[in-house]
Protein backbone atom coordinates (compact mmCIF):
# COMPACT_ATOMS: atom_id res chain seq x y z
CA UNK A 1 0.00 0.00 0.00
CA UNK A 2 1.10 3.55 -0.63
CA UNK A 3 2.20 5.46 2.40
CA UNK A 4 -0.23 8.32 2.99
CA UNK A 5 0.61 10.36 6.07
CA UNK A 6 -2.45 12.56 5.85
CA UNK A 7 -5.30 10.16 5.43
CA UNK A 8 -6.17 9.85 9.09
CA UNK A 9 -5.79 13.41 10.19
CA UNK A 10 -7.41 15.18 7.24
CA UNK A 11 -10.96 16.35 7.71
CA UNK A 12 -13.35 13.45 7.66
CA UNK A 13 -15.19 14.18 4.45
CA UNK A 14 -12.19 14.55 2.20
CA UNK A 15 -12.10 12.36 -0.88
CA UNK A 16 -8.42 12.92 -1.35
CA UNK A 17 -6.45 9.71 -1.70
CA UNK A 18 -2.93 8.91 -2.74
CA UNK A 19 -2.19 7.54 -6.19
CA UNK A 20 -2.64 3.80 -6.37
CA UNK A 21 0.38 1.49 -6.53
CA UNK A 22 -0.39 0.83 -10.20
CA UNK A 23 -0.30 4.56 -10.82
CA UNK A 24 3.13 4.68 -9.27
CA UNK A 25 4.30 1.68 -11.21
CA UNK A 26 3.03 3.05 -14.51
CA UNK A 27 4.72 6.32 -13.68
CA UNK A 28 8.12 4.82 -13.12
CA UNK A 29 7.98 2.43 -16.09
CA UNK A 30 6.76 5.15 -18.38
CA UNK A 31 9.37 7.61 -17.24
CA UNK A 32 12.26 5.24 -17.69
CA UNK A 33 10.99 4.28 -21.12
CA UNK A 34 10.74 7.92 -22.13
CA UNK A 35 14.22 8.50 -20.80
CA UNK A 36 15.49 5.62 -22.83
CA UNK A 37 13.86 7.01 -25.95
CA UNK A 38 15.46 10.41 -25.46
CA UNK A 39 18.74 8.66 -24.87
CA UNK A 40 18.26 6.60 -28.01
CA UNK A 41 18.61 9.71 -30.15
CA UNK A 42 21.97 10.39 -28.60
CA UNK A 43 22.97 6.76 -29.02
CA UNK A 44 21.84 6.79 -32.63
CA UNK A 45 23.96 9.80 -33.48
CA UNK A 46 26.90 8.33 -31.60
CA UNK A 47 26.45 5.04 -33.44
CA UNK A 48 26.24 6.76 -36.81
CA UNK A 49 29.39 8.73 -36.16
CA UNK A 50 31.13 5.67 -34.79
CA UNK A 51 30.08 3.46 -37.68
CA UNK A 52 31.05 5.95 -40.37
CA UNK A 53 34.17 6.93 -38.44
CA UNK A 54 35.47 3.44 -37.85
CA UNK A 55 34.93 2.47 -41.46
CA UNK A 56 36.61 5.64 -42.61
CA UNK A 57 39.55 5.24 -40.28
CA UNK A 58 41.88 3.40 -42.69
CA UNK A 59 41.17 6.02 -45.36
CA UNK A 60 41.78 8.82 -42.90
CA UNK A 61 45.10 7.25 -42.01
CA UNK A 62 46.03 6.74 -45.64
CA UNK A 63 45.01 10.03 -47.12
CA UNK A 64 44.91 12.43 -44.20
CA UNK A 65 44.05 15.95 -45.17
CA UNK A 66 45.25 15.28 -48.68
CA UNK A 67 41.82 13.77 -49.16
CA UNK A 68 40.24 17.14 -48.83
CA UNK A 69 42.65 18.93 -51.12
CA UNK A 70 42.97 16.12 -53.66
CA UNK A 71 41.21 16.53 -56.98
CA UNK A 72 41.16 13.05 -58.49
CA UNK A 73 38.94 10.13 -57.67
CA UNK A 74 40.59 7.21 -59.35
CA UNK A 75 39.71 3.73 -58.21
CA UNK A 76 42.34 2.18 -60.41
CA UNK A 77 45.20 4.00 -58.70
CA UNK A 78 43.48 4.12 -55.31
CA UNK A 79 43.86 7.84 -55.38
CA UNK A 80 41.04 9.67 -53.69
CA UNK A 81 40.37 13.36 -53.24
CA UNK A 82 37.11 15.20 -52.81
CA UNK A 83 37.96 18.82 -53.42
CA UNK A 84 35.84 18.95 -56.59
CA UNK A 85 32.91 17.41 -54.74
CA UNK A 86 33.29 19.83 -51.83
CA UNK A 87 33.46 22.64 -54.33
CA UNK A 88 30.41 21.38 -56.21
CA UNK A 89 28.46 20.86 -53.02
CA UNK A 90 29.16 24.32 -51.68
CA UNK A 91 28.92 26.09 -55.01
CA UNK A 92 25.58 24.57 -55.98
CA UNK A 93 24.13 25.01 -52.49
CA UNK A 94 25.26 28.60 -52.22
CA UNK A 95 23.81 29.43 -55.60
CA UNK A 96 20.59 27.73 -54.58
CA UNK A 97 20.57 29.62 -51.33
CA UNK A 98 21.14 32.87 -53.14
CA UNK A 99 18.31 32.32 -55.58
CA UNK A 100 15.89 30.19 -53.58
CA UNK A 101 16.59 31.99 -50.32
CA UNK A 102 16.10 35.41 -51.85
CA UNK A 103 12.93 34.42 -53.62
CA UNK A 104 11.72 32.59 -50.54
CA UNK A 105 12.05 35.63 -48.35
CA UNK A 106 10.38 37.76 -50.99
CA UNK A 107 7.49 35.31 -51.12
CA UNK A 108 7.27 35.32 -47.35
CA UNK A 109 6.93 39.10 -47.42
CA UNK A 110 4.42 38.85 -50.21
CA UNK A 111 2.44 36.30 -48.22
CA UNK A 112 2.33 38.06 -44.91
CA UNK A 113 2.44 41.79 -45.47
CA UNK A 114 -1.03 42.35 -46.81
CA UNK A 115 -0.40 42.31 -50.54
CA UNK A 116 -3.46 40.21 -51.18
CA UNK A 117 -6.82 39.42 -49.83
CA UNK A 118 -6.67 37.20 -46.75
CA UNK A 119 -8.39 34.29 -48.49
CA UNK A 120 -6.04 34.37 -51.46
CA UNK A 121 -3.20 34.53 -48.98
CA UNK A 122 -4.28 31.30 -47.32
CA UNK A 123 -4.55 29.59 -50.69
CA UNK A 124 -1.15 30.77 -51.84
CA UNK A 125 0.35 29.72 -48.56
CA UNK A 126 -1.15 26.24 -48.76
CA UNK A 127 0.27 25.82 -52.25
CA UNK A 128 3.72 26.88 -51.12
CA UNK A 129 3.64 24.51 -48.20
CA UNK A 130 2.47 21.64 -50.36
CA UNK A 131 5.28 22.28 -52.79
CA UNK A 132 7.73 21.76 -49.95
CA UNK A 133 6.52 18.19 -49.88
CA UNK A 134 7.16 17.30 -53.52
CA UNK A 135 9.79 14.56 -53.56
CA UNK A 136 13.19 15.43 -54.91
CA UNK A 137 13.15 12.77 -57.63
CA UNK A 138 10.17 14.55 -59.09
CA UNK A 139 12.11 17.78 -59.24
CA UNK A 140 14.94 15.83 -60.82
CA UNK A 141 12.63 14.46 -63.47
CA UNK A 142 11.28 17.92 -64.14
CA UNK A 143 14.81 19.27 -64.36
CA UNK A 144 15.77 16.76 -67.04
CA UNK A 145 12.73 17.15 -69.21
CA UNK A 146 11.70 20.78 -68.70
CA UNK A 147 14.46 22.88 -67.24
CA UNK A 148 17.48 21.71 -69.21
CA UNK A 149 15.85 22.06 -72.63
CA UNK A 150 14.48 25.42 -71.50
CA UNK A 151 17.72 27.00 -70.37
CA UNK A 152 19.97 25.45 -72.98
CA UNK A 153 19.41 28.20 -75.59
CA UNK A 154 19.87 30.94 -73.00
CA UNK A 155 23.02 29.31 -71.69
CA UNK A 156 24.32 28.91 -75.21
CA UNK A 157 23.68 32.56 -75.93
CA UNK A 158 25.35 33.66 -72.71
CA UNK A 159 28.36 31.51 -73.50
CA UNK A 160 28.60 32.82 -77.03
CA UNK A 161 28.24 36.43 -75.99
CA UNK A 162 29.97 36.58 -72.63
CA UNK A 163 32.28 33.59 -72.94
CA UNK A 164 35.18 35.71 -71.64
CA UNK A 165 33.39 36.00 -68.32
CA UNK A 166 34.40 33.07 -66.07
CA UNK A 167 30.82 32.27 -65.05
CA UNK A 168 29.92 31.58 -68.66
CA UNK A 169 33.20 30.13 -69.85
CA UNK A 170 31.74 26.82 -70.97
CA UNK A 171 28.67 25.86 -72.91
CA UNK A 172 25.83 23.97 -71.30
CA UNK A 173 25.59 20.60 -72.96
CA UNK A 174 22.89 19.14 -70.77
CA UNK A 175 23.42 18.30 -67.17
CA UNK A 176 25.50 20.84 -65.31
CA UNK A 177 25.79 23.19 -62.41
CA UNK A 178 23.19 25.71 -63.55
CA UNK A 179 20.25 23.31 -63.88
CA UNK A 180 21.27 21.59 -60.65
CA UNK A 181 21.46 24.85 -58.72
CA UNK A 182 18.21 26.11 -60.20
CA UNK A 183 16.36 22.95 -59.26
CA UNK A 184 17.89 23.09 -55.78
CA UNK A 185 16.74 26.68 -55.52
CA UNK A 186 13.22 25.71 -56.47
CA UNK A 187 13.32 22.88 -53.96
CA UNK A 188 14.40 25.01 -51.02
CA UNK A 189 12.23 27.96 -51.93
CA UNK A 190 9.05 26.62 -50.30
CA UNK A 191 10.94 25.66 -47.14
CA UNK A 192 12.49 29.08 -46.79
CA UNK A 193 9.24 30.81 -47.67
CA UNK A 194 7.15 28.81 -45.23
CA UNK A 195 9.49 29.26 -42.28
CA UNK A 196 10.14 32.93 -42.99
CA UNK A 197 6.44 33.58 -43.34
CA UNK A 198 5.94 32.01 -39.94
CA UNK A 199 8.58 34.29 -38.53
CA UNK A 200 6.81 37.30 -39.99
CA UNK A 201 3.49 36.14 -38.66
CA UNK A 202 4.88 35.75 -35.16
CA UNK A 203 5.77 39.42 -34.96
CA UNK A 204 3.25 40.98 -32.61
CA UNK A 205 0.90 43.47 -34.20
CA UNK A 206 2.05 46.12 -31.76
CA UNK A 207 5.45 46.25 -33.44
CA UNK A 208 3.94 46.98 -36.80
CA UNK A 209 1.69 49.52 -35.17
CA UNK A 210 4.64 51.26 -33.58
CA UNK A 211 6.33 51.55 -36.92
CA UNK A 212 3.29 52.97 -38.65
CA UNK A 213 2.85 55.30 -35.72
CA UNK A 214 6.28 56.72 -36.43
CA UNK A 215 5.09 57.72 -39.88
CA UNK A 216 6.75 54.92 -41.79
CA UNK A 217 5.44 53.88 -45.16
CA UNK A 218 4.47 50.29 -45.80
CA UNK A 219 7.85 49.45 -47.25
CA UNK A 220 9.74 51.28 -44.57
CA UNK A 221 7.84 49.19 -42.06
CA UNK A 222 8.66 45.99 -43.91
CA UNK A 223 12.29 46.64 -44.59
CA UNK A 224 13.33 48.55 -41.50
CA UNK A 225 11.23 46.88 -38.84
CA UNK A 226 9.66 43.61 -39.88
CA UNK A 227 12.71 42.21 -41.63
CA UNK A 228 15.14 42.73 -38.75
CA UNK A 229 12.56 41.52 -36.26
CA UNK A 230 11.94 38.35 -38.21
CA UNK A 231 15.62 37.86 -38.93
CA UNK A 232 16.26 34.99 -36.57
CA UNK A 233 13.30 33.08 -37.95
CA UNK A 234 14.30 33.84 -41.52
CA UNK A 235 17.79 32.69 -40.69
CA UNK A 236 16.42 29.42 -39.39
CA UNK A 237 14.63 28.96 -42.70
CA UNK A 238 17.76 29.77 -44.68
CA UNK A 239 19.86 27.37 -42.64
CA UNK A 240 17.32 24.62 -43.08
CA UNK A 241 17.15 25.31 -46.79
CA UNK A 242 20.92 25.39 -47.09
CA UNK A 243 21.17 22.15 -45.14
CA UNK A 244 18.65 20.57 -47.42
CA UNK A 245 20.60 21.74 -50.45
CA UNK A 246 23.87 20.38 -49.06
CA UNK A 247 22.45 16.94 -48.44
CA UNK A 248 20.24 16.71 -51.50
CA UNK A 249 21.16 13.68 -53.51
CA UNK A 250 18.87 12.35 -56.17
CA UNK A 251 17.84 15.49 -57.98
CA UNK A 252 21.50 16.39 -58.18
CA UNK A 253 22.64 12.97 -59.24
CA UNK A 254 20.14 13.34 -62.06
CA UNK A 255 21.15 16.85 -63.10
CA UNK A 256 24.67 17.83 -62.21
CA UNK A 257 26.63 15.70 -64.68
CA UNK A 258 28.70 13.82 -62.08
CA UNK A 259 32.06 15.12 -63.28
CA UNK A 260 34.88 15.71 -60.83
CA UNK A 261 36.03 19.05 -62.15
CA UNK A 262 36.43 22.34 -60.42
CA UNK A 263 35.08 25.10 -62.59
CA UNK A 264 33.48 28.42 -61.82
CA UNK A 265 31.46 28.19 -64.98
CA UNK A 266 27.77 27.89 -64.30
CA UNK A 267 27.33 25.61 -67.28
CA UNK A 268 30.07 23.12 -66.57
CA UNK A 269 29.11 19.72 -65.23
CA UNK A 270 30.19 19.13 -61.64
CA UNK A 271 29.66 16.73 -58.78
CA UNK A 272 28.64 16.85 -55.14
CA UNK A 273 29.54 14.74 -52.16
CA UNK A 274 26.05 13.31 -51.90
CA UNK A 275 25.80 12.38 -55.54
CA UNK A 276 29.32 10.94 -55.45
CA UNK A 277 28.04 8.67 -52.70
CA UNK A 278 24.90 7.79 -54.59
CA UNK A 279 26.68 6.88 -57.79
CA UNK A 280 29.85 5.31 -56.42
CA UNK A 281 28.84 3.59 -53.23
CA UNK A 282 27.05 0.57 -54.73
CA UNK A 283 30.07 -0.51 -56.77
CA UNK A 284 32.83 0.47 -54.40
CA UNK A 285 35.34 -2.13 -53.26
CA UNK A 286 36.80 -2.22 -49.79
CA UNK A 287 39.33 0.54 -50.21
CA UNK A 288 36.98 2.79 -52.08
CA UNK A 289 34.29 2.22 -49.44
CA UNK A 290 36.69 3.50 -46.82
CA UNK A 291 37.31 6.59 -48.92
CA UNK A 292 33.57 7.04 -49.38
CA UNK A 293 33.02 6.76 -45.65
CA UNK A 294 35.64 9.46 -45.27
CA UNK A 295 33.67 11.52 -47.80
CA UNK A 296 30.52 10.85 -45.76
CA UNK A 297 32.26 12.20 -42.71
CA UNK A 298 33.28 15.29 -44.65
CA UNK A 299 29.68 15.82 -45.73
CA UNK A 300 28.45 15.20 -42.20
CA UNK A 301 30.98 17.66 -40.89
CA UNK A 302 29.90 20.31 -43.40
CA UNK A 303 26.23 19.94 -42.51
CA UNK A 304 27.09 19.85 -38.84
CA UNK A 305 29.12 23.04 -39.08
CA UNK A 306 26.40 24.75 -41.09
CA UNK A 307 23.73 23.74 -38.62
CA UNK A 308 25.71 24.66 -35.55
CA UNK A 309 26.79 27.94 -37.10
CA UNK A 310 23.17 28.53 -38.02
CA UNK A 311 22.04 27.92 -34.47
CA UNK A 312 24.79 30.16 -33.15
CA UNK A 313 24.00 33.01 -35.52
CA UNK A 314 20.35 32.63 -34.68
CA UNK A 315 21.13 32.91 -31.02
CA UNK A 316 23.31 35.90 -31.72
CA UNK A 317 20.59 37.71 -33.64
CA UNK A 318 18.09 36.83 -30.96
CA UNK A 319 20.33 38.36 -28.35
CA UNK A 320 21.08 41.35 -30.50
CA UNK A 321 17.57 42.12 -31.64
CA UNK A 322 15.36 40.59 -29.02
CA UNK A 323 17.51 40.98 -25.93
CA UNK A 324 17.06 37.29 -25.13
CA UNK A 325 19.76 35.44 -23.30
Amino acid sequence: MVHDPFKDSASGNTLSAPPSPTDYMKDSIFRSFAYFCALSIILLVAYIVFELGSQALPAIKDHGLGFITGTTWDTNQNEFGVLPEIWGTLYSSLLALLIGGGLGVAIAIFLTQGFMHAKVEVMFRTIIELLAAIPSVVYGLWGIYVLIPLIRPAAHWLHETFGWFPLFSTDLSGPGLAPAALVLAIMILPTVAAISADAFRRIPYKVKEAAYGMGATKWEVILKVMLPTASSGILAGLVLGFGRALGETMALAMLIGNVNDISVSLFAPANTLASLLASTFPEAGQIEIQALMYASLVLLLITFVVNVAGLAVQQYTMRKFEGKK
Partner: protein
Amino acid sequence: MSQINEQILPPRINLPSLEKNVLELRALKDFFLTGLVWGLAILASIPLISVIYMLIMEGGARLDFEAITALPPAGFETGGGFGNAIVGTLTMVGIASALSIPIGTMAALYLAILNPNSKTATVSRFLSKVLTGFPSILAGVFVYAVIVITTGTYSAWAGGVALAVLMLPTVTLAAEEAMKQVPQRMKDAAFGMGCTRTQVIFKVVLPTALPGIMTGVILAVAGAAGESAPLLFTALFSNYYMSELAEPTASLSILIYNFSGMPFENQIELAWTASLALVLLVLFFNIVARVVGRTKFRE
Protein backbone atom coordinates in the same frame (compact mmCIF):
# COMPACT_ATOMS: atom_id res chain seq x y z
CA MET B 1 1.22 78.76 -37.33
CA SER B 2 4.30 77.02 -38.58
CA GLN B 3 6.56 78.34 -35.90
CA ILE B 4 5.49 75.74 -33.36
CA ASN B 5 7.62 75.59 -30.32
CA GLU B 6 10.05 77.88 -31.97
CA GLN B 7 11.79 78.72 -28.75
CA ILE B 8 12.87 75.09 -28.15
CA LEU B 9 12.95 73.45 -31.50
CA PRO B 10 15.75 73.73 -33.95
CA PRO B 11 14.26 75.46 -36.95
CA ARG B 12 12.25 72.96 -38.95
CA ILE B 13 13.54 72.31 -42.36
CA ASN B 14 10.18 71.50 -43.85
CA LEU B 15 7.04 73.10 -42.61
CA PRO B 16 3.99 70.93 -42.18
CA SER B 17 2.92 70.12 -45.65
CA LEU B 18 0.82 67.05 -45.51
CA GLU B 19 -0.02 66.62 -49.13
CA LYS B 20 0.67 63.47 -51.02
CA ASN B 21 3.28 63.68 -53.68
CA VAL B 22 3.39 60.82 -56.13
CA LEU B 23 6.69 61.89 -57.61
CA GLU B 24 8.48 61.97 -54.33
CA LEU B 25 11.30 59.46 -54.02
CA ARG B 26 9.56 57.68 -51.18
CA ALA B 27 6.42 57.10 -53.14
CA LEU B 28 8.40 55.93 -56.16
CA LYS B 29 10.38 53.55 -54.00
CA ASP B 30 7.23 52.09 -52.54
CA PHE B 31 5.78 51.67 -55.98
CA PHE B 32 8.91 50.02 -57.29
CA LEU B 33 9.24 47.63 -54.36
CA THR B 34 5.63 46.58 -54.54
CA GLY B 35 6.10 45.83 -58.22
CA LEU B 36 9.25 43.91 -57.37
CA VAL B 37 7.64 41.52 -54.88
CA TRP B 38 4.77 40.92 -57.23
CA GLY B 39 7.30 40.17 -59.93
CA LEU B 40 9.33 37.87 -57.71
CA ALA B 41 6.24 36.05 -56.52
CA ILE B 42 5.14 35.46 -60.08
CA LEU B 43 8.64 34.43 -61.08
CA ALA B 44 8.80 31.93 -58.26
CA SER B 45 5.40 30.56 -59.12
CA ILE B 46 6.35 29.75 -62.69
CA PRO B 47 8.56 26.72 -61.98
CA LEU B 48 6.23 25.53 -59.29
CA ILE B 49 3.24 25.74 -61.57
CA SER B 50 5.25 24.15 -64.34
CA VAL B 51 6.08 21.15 -62.12
CA ILE B 52 2.43 20.66 -61.37
CA TYR B 53 1.46 21.16 -65.00
CA MET B 54 3.96 18.59 -66.19
CA LEU B 55 2.86 16.10 -63.57
CA ILE B 56 -0.71 16.38 -64.64
CA MET B 57 -0.12 16.55 -68.37
CA GLU B 58 2.62 13.93 -68.63
CA GLY B 59 1.54 11.71 -65.78
CA GLY B 60 -2.21 12.04 -65.81
CA ALA B 61 -2.85 10.17 -69.02
CA ARG B 62 -1.41 6.89 -67.80
CA LEU B 63 -2.72 7.01 -64.24
CA ASP B 64 -5.19 4.17 -64.49
CA PHE B 65 -5.86 0.81 -62.93
CA GLU B 66 -3.10 -0.85 -64.90
CA ALA B 67 -0.54 1.68 -63.76
CA ILE B 68 -1.25 1.23 -60.11
CA THR B 69 -1.45 -2.55 -60.18
CA ALA B 70 0.80 -3.89 -62.92
CA LEU B 71 4.49 -4.71 -62.56
CA PRO B 72 7.19 -2.47 -64.04
CA PRO B 73 7.98 -3.22 -67.68
CA ALA B 74 11.38 -4.36 -68.84
CA GLY B 75 13.23 -1.96 -71.13
CA PHE B 76 11.53 -2.76 -74.41
CA GLU B 77 8.08 -3.71 -73.22
CA THR B 78 5.00 -1.55 -73.48
CA GLY B 79 2.40 -1.03 -70.82
CA GLY B 80 3.13 -1.99 -67.25
CA GLY B 81 2.87 -0.01 -64.06
CA PHE B 82 4.19 0.30 -60.56
CA GLY B 83 1.81 -1.56 -58.26
CA ASN B 84 4.69 -3.25 -56.46
CA ALA B 85 6.36 0.13 -55.90
CA ILE B 86 3.25 1.52 -54.24
CA VAL B 87 3.07 -1.50 -51.96
CA GLY B 88 6.79 -1.22 -51.22
CA THR B 89 6.66 2.48 -50.45
CA LEU B 90 3.70 2.03 -48.13
CA THR B 91 5.32 -0.92 -46.39
CA MET B 92 8.62 0.81 -45.80
CA VAL B 93 6.97 4.02 -44.67
CA GLY B 94 4.89 1.85 -42.37
CA ILE B 95 7.97 0.22 -40.87
CA ALA B 96 9.63 3.61 -40.48
CA SER B 97 6.53 5.00 -38.78
CA ALA B 98 6.18 2.03 -36.46
CA LEU B 99 9.77 2.59 -35.34
CA SER B 100 10.09 6.32 -35.26
CA ILE B 101 6.70 7.51 -34.08
CA PRO B 102 6.63 5.79 -30.67
CA ILE B 103 10.29 6.46 -29.99
CA GLY B 104 10.06 10.02 -31.22
CA THR B 105 6.91 10.81 -29.27
CA MET B 106 8.28 9.29 -26.10
CA ALA B 107 11.55 11.13 -26.50
CA ALA B 108 9.55 14.32 -27.06
CA LEU B 109 7.68 13.70 -23.82
CA TYR B 110 10.96 13.47 -22.04
CA LEU B 111 12.23 16.64 -23.71
CA ALA B 112 9.07 18.64 -23.25
CA ILE B 113 7.65 17.50 -19.93
CA LEU B 114 9.50 14.90 -17.96
CA ASN B 115 12.90 16.47 -17.70
CA PRO B 116 13.29 19.36 -20.10
CA ASN B 117 16.39 20.86 -18.59
CA SER B 118 18.39 17.74 -17.90
CA LYS B 119 21.65 17.07 -19.67
CA THR B 120 20.18 14.15 -21.56
CA ALA B 121 17.34 16.33 -22.78
CA THR B 122 19.61 19.18 -23.81
CA VAL B 123 22.00 16.96 -25.72
CA SER B 124 19.18 14.95 -27.22
CA ARG B 125 17.39 18.07 -28.39
CA PHE B 126 20.53 19.53 -29.88
CA LEU B 127 21.35 16.31 -31.70
CA SER B 128 17.80 16.06 -33.00
CA LYS B 129 18.20 19.50 -34.50
CA VAL B 130 21.48 18.49 -36.05
CA LEU B 131 19.94 15.25 -37.33
CA THR B 132 17.24 17.15 -39.19
CA GLY B 133 20.05 18.46 -41.38
CA PHE B 134 21.48 14.96 -41.75
CA PRO B 135 21.99 14.23 -45.46
CA SER B 136 19.50 11.51 -46.26
CA ILE B 137 21.97 9.56 -48.33
CA LEU B 138 24.07 9.04 -45.22
CA ALA B 139 21.17 7.29 -43.57
CA GLY B 140 21.34 4.85 -46.44
CA VAL B 141 25.10 4.45 -46.12
CA PHE B 142 24.75 3.84 -42.40
CA VAL B 143 21.96 1.31 -42.66
CA TYR B 144 23.72 -0.46 -45.51
CA ALA B 145 26.73 -1.02 -43.29
CA VAL B 146 24.67 -2.01 -40.27
CA ILE B 147 21.83 -4.05 -41.71
CA VAL B 148 22.29 -4.96 -45.37
CA ILE B 149 25.79 -6.33 -44.94
CA THR B 150 24.96 -8.25 -41.78
CA THR B 151 21.74 -9.79 -43.05
CA GLY B 152 23.17 -10.49 -46.47
CA THR B 153 20.30 -9.04 -48.45
CA TYR B 154 18.69 -5.80 -49.44
CA SER B 155 15.36 -5.64 -47.71
CA ALA B 156 12.27 -3.66 -46.86
CA TRP B 157 13.48 -3.78 -43.27
CA ALA B 158 16.66 -1.97 -44.14
CA GLY B 159 14.75 0.61 -46.17
CA GLY B 160 12.29 1.14 -43.34
CA VAL B 161 15.03 1.59 -40.78
CA ALA B 162 16.82 4.10 -42.99
CA LEU B 163 13.63 6.10 -43.34
CA ALA B 164 13.06 5.82 -39.60
CA VAL B 165 16.46 7.40 -38.95
CA LEU B 166 15.31 10.35 -41.02
CA MET B 167 11.85 10.56 -39.46
CA LEU B 168 12.96 10.27 -35.86
CA PRO B 169 14.29 13.81 -35.34
CA THR B 170 11.41 15.36 -37.27
CA VAL B 171 8.84 13.52 -35.22
CA THR B 172 10.64 14.27 -31.97
CA LEU B 173 10.98 17.99 -32.58
CA ALA B 174 7.46 18.40 -33.92
CA ALA B 175 5.96 16.48 -31.03
CA GLU B 176 8.02 18.42 -28.52
CA GLU B 177 6.87 21.66 -30.10
CA ALA B 178 3.24 20.55 -29.96
CA MET B 179 3.56 19.54 -26.32
CA LYS B 180 5.20 22.79 -25.43
CA GLN B 181 2.21 24.57 -26.93
CA VAL B 182 0.02 23.07 -24.26
CA PRO B 183 -0.26 26.08 -21.97
CA GLN B 184 1.81 25.81 -18.84
CA ARG B 185 -1.20 26.78 -16.80
CA MET B 186 -3.05 23.69 -17.97
CA LYS B 187 -0.16 21.54 -16.83
CA ASP B 188 -0.03 23.50 -13.59
CA ALA B 189 -3.68 22.78 -13.05
CA ALA B 190 -3.07 19.07 -13.44
CA PHE B 191 -0.05 19.06 -11.17
CA GLY B 192 -2.00 21.13 -8.70
CA MET B 193 -4.67 18.44 -8.62
CA GLY B 194 -2.06 15.94 -7.52
CA CYS B 195 -1.33 14.16 -10.81
CA THR B 196 1.85 12.19 -11.21
CA ARG B 197 3.87 13.24 -14.24
CA THR B 198 2.58 10.29 -16.20
CA GLN B 199 -0.96 11.22 -15.33
CA VAL B 200 -0.36 14.80 -16.42
CA ILE B 201 0.92 13.47 -19.71
CA PHE B 202 -1.86 11.03 -20.42
CA LYS B 203 -4.77 13.02 -19.08
CA VAL B 204 -3.86 16.52 -20.17
CA VAL B 205 -0.80 16.92 -22.35
CA LEU B 206 -1.34 14.16 -24.90
CA PRO B 207 -5.06 14.78 -25.50
CA THR B 208 -4.43 18.49 -25.85
CA ALA B 209 -1.32 18.18 -27.99
CA LEU B 210 -2.51 15.28 -30.11
CA PRO B 211 -3.58 17.27 -33.17
CA GLY B 212 -0.23 19.06 -33.15
CA ILE B 213 1.69 15.84 -32.74
CA MET B 214 -0.32 14.24 -35.53
CA THR B 215 0.45 17.12 -37.85
CA GLY B 216 4.16 16.75 -37.23
CA VAL B 217 4.00 13.01 -37.58
CA ILE B 218 2.08 13.05 -40.82
CA LEU B 219 4.39 15.62 -42.33
CA ALA B 220 7.30 13.38 -41.40
CA VAL B 221 5.52 10.43 -42.99
CA ALA B 222 4.92 12.45 -46.14
CA GLY B 223 8.59 13.39 -46.23
CA ALA B 224 9.64 9.77 -45.83
CA ALA B 225 7.33 8.61 -48.60
CA GLY B 226 9.16 10.86 -51.02
CA GLU B 227 12.69 9.92 -49.96
CA SER B 228 14.81 8.08 -52.46
CA ALA B 229 18.46 8.42 -51.52
CA PRO B 230 18.28 6.29 -48.36
CA LEU B 231 16.48 3.49 -50.21
CA LEU B 232 19.05 3.29 -52.96
CA PHE B 233 21.36 0.94 -51.08
CA THR B 234 19.01 -0.47 -48.52
CA ALA B 235 15.82 -1.60 -50.23
CA LEU B 236 17.27 -1.55 -53.74
CA PHE B 237 14.40 -2.37 -56.10
CA SER B 238 12.46 -5.34 -57.29
CA ASN B 239 10.45 -6.07 -60.38
CA TYR B 240 7.94 -8.14 -58.43
CA TYR B 241 5.41 -7.65 -55.69
CA MET B 242 7.00 -8.16 -52.33
CA SER B 243 6.22 -11.37 -50.53
CA GLU B 244 8.33 -10.91 -47.43
CA LEU B 245 10.14 -8.11 -45.66
CA ALA B 246 13.58 -9.61 -46.08
CA GLU B 247 13.92 -9.21 -49.82
CA PRO B 248 14.77 -6.38 -52.17
CA THR B 249 11.74 -4.14 -52.36
CA ALA B 250 10.45 -1.69 -54.91
CA SER B 251 9.56 1.89 -54.09
CA LEU B 252 8.00 4.69 -56.09
CA SER B 253 10.89 7.07 -55.65
CA ILE B 254 13.52 4.60 -56.82
CA LEU B 255 11.31 3.63 -59.73
CA ILE B 256 11.10 7.26 -60.75
CA TYR B 257 14.86 7.62 -60.42
CA ASN B 258 15.52 4.50 -62.48
CA PHE B 259 12.95 5.16 -65.16
CA SER B 260 13.73 8.83 -65.57
CA GLY B 261 17.26 7.91 -66.61
CA MET B 262 16.10 5.45 -69.23
CA PRO B 263 15.98 6.11 -72.95
CA PHE B 264 12.62 4.36 -73.43
CA GLU B 265 9.44 6.36 -73.97
CA ASN B 266 7.31 3.93 -72.02
CA GLN B 267 9.46 4.13 -68.92
CA ILE B 268 9.64 7.90 -69.04
CA GLU B 269 5.88 8.11 -69.27
CA LEU B 270 5.63 5.80 -66.30
CA ALA B 271 8.18 7.89 -64.41
CA TRP B 272 5.85 10.87 -64.78
CA THR B 273 2.83 8.80 -63.83
CA ALA B 274 4.61 7.41 -60.79
CA SER B 275 5.64 10.95 -59.86
CA LEU B 276 2.06 12.04 -60.01
CA ALA B 277 1.05 9.05 -57.88
CA LEU B 278 3.79 9.79 -55.37
CA VAL B 279 2.86 13.46 -55.20
CA LEU B 280 -0.77 12.53 -54.73
CA LEU B 281 0.21 10.16 -51.94
CA VAL B 282 2.31 12.82 -50.25
CA LEU B 283 -0.43 15.35 -50.85
CA PHE B 284 -2.93 13.03 -49.23
CA PHE B 285 -0.77 12.78 -46.11
CA ASN B 286 -0.37 16.54 -46.13
CA ILE B 287 -4.04 17.23 -46.38
CA VAL B 288 -4.73 14.79 -43.58
CA ALA B 289 -2.12 16.63 -41.52
CA ARG B 290 -3.76 19.93 -42.26
CA VAL B 291 -7.22 18.73 -41.40
CA VAL B 292 -5.99 17.17 -38.19
CA GLY B 293 -4.00 20.28 -37.43
CA ARG B 294 -7.00 22.53 -37.91
CA THR B 295 -8.92 20.82 -35.14
CA LYS B 296 -6.16 21.99 -32.85
CA PHE B 297 -7.72 23.07 -29.63
CA ARG B 298 -8.44 26.73 -29.32
CA GLU B 299 -8.50 28.68 -26.14
